């Protein structure tokens, strides 16, 4: 591996591979004592994670995201994978009554969540709101046309999607139990050998969780917030007002059939603050709030 961030630990009955990707630490646990097979599976997962990172990162030049964000109002043709992802985001937009909006990323120009009390100016926020609004985007089956100065950001679903894709690849290529953990977003191919669960430590929870199938995702970041008077402003912004959610939970962790589903539900729950608990009670099968 020519990646300087790569770390490998051999625990005999299972192997742990780690590397930096998508802005955080990525871990892959493969339950086998066969080093060769473990490396083969990891190699496929590593390539897939890097591929997705490069394709959907907003920092890359000339990937599909770059083309969409710099199209200046012209129609951009979408490949099948990008089209499916964006249509998924479109569905979540509708299901969340517009609260989950992938055009809202431009608000980061107004907000710095450094635990200080530097709140953004109303003027800046108002200006930025003019370039936000998924309903103004023309999305067709194979193309997207965005108004000028609009930007999309798939950061909210990209990592969970990568987890699910990597898990799928592992499943397609072997029956060996594999767990993928990209910065806290987790997915498993299935239970460990002898039908034992993967025991997961959810940060902040007193007891560990036994994961047999599916995925886990957490939304929230206890280090990114602002203080204003007696309110804690979460780093999750309301795309309709441009302002942060107030006194939202520090984090919401959801377990679901896929990591993408878990991530979407936990983000939606956050956006429904202060009614997040009701939402989770109704919609999620398993959740933790901190």
């Amino acid at each position, binding site marked *: 591996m020519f990646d300087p961030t790569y770390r490998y630990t051999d625990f005999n009955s299972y192997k742990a591979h780690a590397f930096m990707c998508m802005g955080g630490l990525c871990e892959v646990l493969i339950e086998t004592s066969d080093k060769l097979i473990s490396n083969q599976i990891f190699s496929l997962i590593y390539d897939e994670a890097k591929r997705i990172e490069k394709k959907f990162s907003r920092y890359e030049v000339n990937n599909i995201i770059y083309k969409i964000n710099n199209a200046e109002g012209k129609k951009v043709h979408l490949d099948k994978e990008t089209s499916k992802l964006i249509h998924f985001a479109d569905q979540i937009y509708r299901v969340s009554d517009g609260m989950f909006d992938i055009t809202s990323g431009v608000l980061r120009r107004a907000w710095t969540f450094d635990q200080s009390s530097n709140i953004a100016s109303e003027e800046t*926020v108002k200006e930025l709101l003019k370039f936000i609004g998924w309903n103004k985007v023309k999305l067709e089956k194979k193309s997207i046309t965005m108004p000028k100065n609009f930007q999309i950001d798939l950061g909210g679903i990209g990592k969970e999607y990568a987890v699910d894709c990597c898990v799928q690849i592992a499943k397609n290529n072997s029956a060996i139990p594999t767990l993928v953990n990209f910065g806290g977003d987790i997915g498993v191919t299935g239970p460990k050998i002898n039908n034992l669960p993967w025991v997961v430590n959810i940060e902040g929870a007193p007891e560990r969780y036994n994961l047999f199938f599916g995925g886990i995702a957490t939304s929230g970041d206890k280090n990114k917030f602002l203080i*204003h008077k007696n309110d804690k*402003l979460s780093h999750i912004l*309301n795309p*309709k*007002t441009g*302002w*942060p*959610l*107030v006194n939202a939970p520090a984090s919401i962790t959801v377990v679901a059939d896929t990591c993408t589903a878990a991530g979407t539900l936990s983000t939606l729950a956050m956006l429904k603050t202060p009614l997040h608990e009701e939402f989770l009670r109704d919609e999620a099968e398993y959740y933790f709030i901190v």
Partner: protein
Amino acid sequence: MRNSTINNQNNFQNSYMTNLFVFLKFSLIKIFTLFYFIFVTAACSSMGVKPWEREVLSKKEMTFGAYVLEAGFEDHTYFSKEGSSGGRSFSAGGCGCN
């Protein structure tokens, strides 16, 4: 129910003097109400919300004047069966109703 007769002072009702008197008398109540409102709103600076506290206030049901057609239908119905009109906002146009 009053038992008014035609022979009361009706002929002064339409004179400017009585009009002015009624206007001024009621004006005092009006001016008082207006100043009370302005005082209350200006003095209580603790009233109000920050921009990020407007999730509830932005709901349609929490906005005055959000349901235009319904208000128009209702104003028209009541206006044609009763002696009062307006007050809420401007009514759009007249009819031969009252």
